[in-house]
Every structure is written in C-alpha cells, then in structure tokens.
C-alpha cells in the first residue's frame, strides 16, 4: 500500500491521438464541402501505463516519433490524454530546458516574473530567486533589454536559468540540454545533475543518449511506436535498446 502512496506520477493506460481537429475554413466549407470528408487519425501514444515513485529518476528512450515528447507534454499538462489518466498526486511540475515561452517585446526581467507566475509561484517567491536567476543566466545588463534583442544562446540561457532555479517537485526534461557556450554547457549540466539527484525530486528525462541516461537514471522506459517495449533498470534496457537501434 505504501508503494501506491509514494508515487509521484501515475500514468494509467494513456492514449493520445492527433486527429479530430483540423483547421477548417468557413469559405471552403461553404464552397467545397466535399473536400472535408475524412480527418486522418494518428495515435502517438497507444495505451501506456507506468508509475514513478517519488524521488526517482526515470529515463525514456525511443526512436524519433515514438511518442516520447508527446507523453512528456501530457505529463506536464500541456495536453490531456484522449483516454486514460495521468495523476501527479498534487505535485508541481515543469518542463525543463525549453523554458516557459517568452514575450519578445518584454525585458528579460519581466519575462522571469511572467514565467514564474505561469509556473505557479507568487511574486515574493520570484523576488527571492530573482538575483540567483539573473546571475546564473550570465546576461548582465541584457536582463533589462527586450528578449527580442537576445541571441539564441542568451535566450536559452535565460530559459534554462528560470526553470532550473525556480524548482518544482517534478521536473520533466526533454533532451538533456546543451545550452549556450562550452562554459555554460558545463555549468548547466552540473546544475541539472544537482537538481536531478536531489532525493525529494522526481524526474523524467527524455533522451537519445544512452550514456547520459545510464549516468543519471534509476529506471528506463523504452517506447516504441507509442507502446512500451521494455521497462527496467539501465543495465537491462539500455544494451537491448542500443542493439535494436544499431
């Protein structure tokens, strides 16, 4: 019983389809209705169930288009499954690395507040972490300039700093990041490592790199064409996955 209590993420029989909603045009529907007969159906995730105990680190592997990122977005609540259920047991969650999405006209500082508020933090909590975020991002004076003036490196540095320093209980990581220049890459990797290895934090990492996953993860989930092909410890799954992919 206590096992069930301690789960941070419960995914039960989740199916996610890309289908029903295609853009329509009123004019075309009026003039050429016969062109709108069929909408294609594509099931990206086909009935996946698993659990992640609190504090665990789960790695998800699979080839391109196997439904990894779709599943991750569903866990983040960006879209809900068409069938099945995802239960985060009340934990806060964020998708690390890609940032929350910036408003290009606003300054970096304003975007820190916006991202923080969107992640469910309040003004005081953000104020507390503000200096740390700015320092970590290495943006200096640029923090008060509009984000549209940033280089792509600066952009991703800020995005990473925000989500890494405003910590949530569950962190979802899509592709272990290689952000910014060599120095920042090393720094962000170290930061992520310390975030991930925190015993209270539950982490799900999607990656292609077996090496990174075997270093960081407790268990591995192998998705293949929307279904679980294998699930187990790194030593069990990763060699088989490597073999399959080569």
């Amino acid at each position, binding site marked *: 019983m206590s096992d069930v209590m301690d789960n941070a993420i419960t995914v039960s029989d989740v199916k996610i389809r*890309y289908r*029903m*909603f*295609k*853009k*329509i*045009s*009123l*004019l075309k529907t009026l003039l050429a209705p016969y062109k709108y007969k069929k909408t294609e159906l594509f099931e990206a995730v086909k009935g996946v169930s698993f659990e992640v105990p609190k504090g665990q680190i789960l790695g998800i592997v699979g080839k391109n288009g196997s439904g990894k990122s779709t599943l991750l*977005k569903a866990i*983040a*609540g*960006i*879209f*809900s499954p068409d069938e099945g259920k995802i239960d985060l047991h009340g934990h806060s969650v*964020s*998708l690390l690395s*890609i*940032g*929350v*999405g*910036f*408003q290009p*006209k*606003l300054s970096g500082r*304003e975007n820190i*507040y*916006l991202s923080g*508020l*969107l*992640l*469910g933090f*309040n*003004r005081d909590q953000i104020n507390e972490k503000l200096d740390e975020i700015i320092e970590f991002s290495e943006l200096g004076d640029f923090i008060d300039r*509009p984000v549209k003036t940033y280089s792509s490196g600066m952009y991703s540095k800020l995005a990473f700093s925000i989500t890494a320093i405003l910590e949530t209980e569950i962190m979802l990581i899509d592709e272990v990041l290689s952000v910014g220049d060599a120095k920042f890459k090393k720094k962000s990797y170290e930061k992520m490592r310390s975030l991930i290895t925190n015993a209270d934090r539950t982490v799900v990492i999607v990656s292609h790199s077996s090496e990174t996953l075997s270093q960081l993860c407790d268990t591995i989930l192998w998705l293949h064409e929307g279904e679980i092909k294998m699930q187990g410890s790194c030593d069990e799954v990763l060699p088989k996955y490597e073999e399959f992919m080569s």
Partner: protein
Amino acid sequence: MTKMRFFKDFKRFFNYVVFASKAELNSEVADSFLSWLWWFLDPLLYMLVYSFIAVVVFKSGVQYFPVFVFLGLNTWTFFSKTVKSSVKLVSAKKNIVTKVYVPKFMFVFEKIGVYGFKMIISNLLVVITMIGYKVPLTWRVLWIIPITIVLVVVTFGISTIIMHFGVFVEDLLNVITVVLQLGFYLSGIFYSIESIGKNIKGRVPDPYGTLLVKLNPMALLITDLRRVLLYGENPHWVMLIAWFVAGLLMSFVGVQIIYKFENSYVKVI
C-alpha cells in the same frame, strides 16, 4: 465542478494576468516615444471625423456632441479590440501554450486588462469635456458601475467563445472584422438610436430603434452610459439585467468549451 475549477484557476493565475497586462502596456509605452499620447489622440481625432459626418453631412445636432461621441467610441473600442484580438489569441500565445498549462480564458482577461486600462485613460477625455460643457450631474452617474460590469461580462463571454472557434476556423478573422464593422454602425457611436429626453431625437425609426437597443448589447450599453452620465435619465434596467444574465451564460458556455477542448489547441496551432 466547472465553477469551482474556474474560481480556483482564476485565483491561481490572477497575478499572472495583472502582470502580463501591465507588461504589455509598459512595452507599448516604451516601444516608441510618447506613444501613449495616441490613447488620447485616437478618440480625439475620430471624434472630429464623426463630428464632420454628423454635423456637416447629416446635419444632425446632439447636445454635448463631443462627449456623446467619446463615450460611444471608447466603449466600442474596448469591446471590439478585445473581441478582435481574441480570434487569434491562442496562436498569438503559442510560445506559452506549447510549454506550460494555462487556462486559456485567462488570456481574454489579459486583453480585458489592457484594453480596459486604455478605455479608462481615454475616458479622461469624457471627464474633461464634461467639465468644459458644464454638464449637470445627477446621482444617476453612479449607474455607470453596473453598466460597466455588464460591459465586461458581455465582452468576456463573447470573446471566450470566439477565441475557441478562432483556433479551428482559419478565416474567422475575416468574418469577425466584417461583423464588427456592422456592429459599429448599429451601435450608434456617432448618432443616437433612440430619443433621449427632449433634446435628442432618435435616428432609427421605431420599432427598429427599440429593437436595436434591445438586441445589440453594445447599443444598449452605450445608450445607457449616455443616459446616466449626460442626460440624467435611468438606464433600461430590464434589458441591462437581461444582458447581464446573457453575458454570464455566454461566459459559462465559453469557459466550459475552453476547458473541454483547450488541450487540443496545441495540436492545431
């Protein structure tokens, strides 16, 4: 269920909405020097245009005409800009929508915040011209509060529904633009639909005038704002309450469909 979730979400994301509205206004001000001056100049110049059309072309005179136009124009601008920006609102917020969960109707509140603030600023023109014309005030001025509440509720209801369909219907913006243009002429911005008091003759003959004021919420709200503020008359209470209820209903339906479908938005935009 929906009601509970709505209030919970509203509370959780309220700070975001306030900050985002302020930031949007700030960036507009910072973008170009003195750009906030346009918040006054826009209504002022349009008022001159409509004065020309009404007084010179149609030879109609309305008491306190500039205030009369400002009230109509500012109210209409708030409504039409909020509605129009809702059509493509979800794809405009693509950056956010694809990366974090936000109840999408909060974006409508953000727009209401932005355009509501601009409406308040441009209504300073109303205050100034009212002082200039020495318009006599009655205690009925207080009725602008319930009228404004109805305005916000109706605008929110219509905008949420339109935002939802705007995600899936490519050419909705074309349709909405035309409908809003029609709405502009049918809301009596620079003419009076119905007769008010002794001084103002309605330009739309009955029964159409009465019907228009009843069926077009913007015509009703604009007419009633003028009645209470300029001419010391009561608003159309029954219709006001009816549109308040209708606005709440539309808001309820809008929030409901957004909750039901918002998770598919990401797959479309």
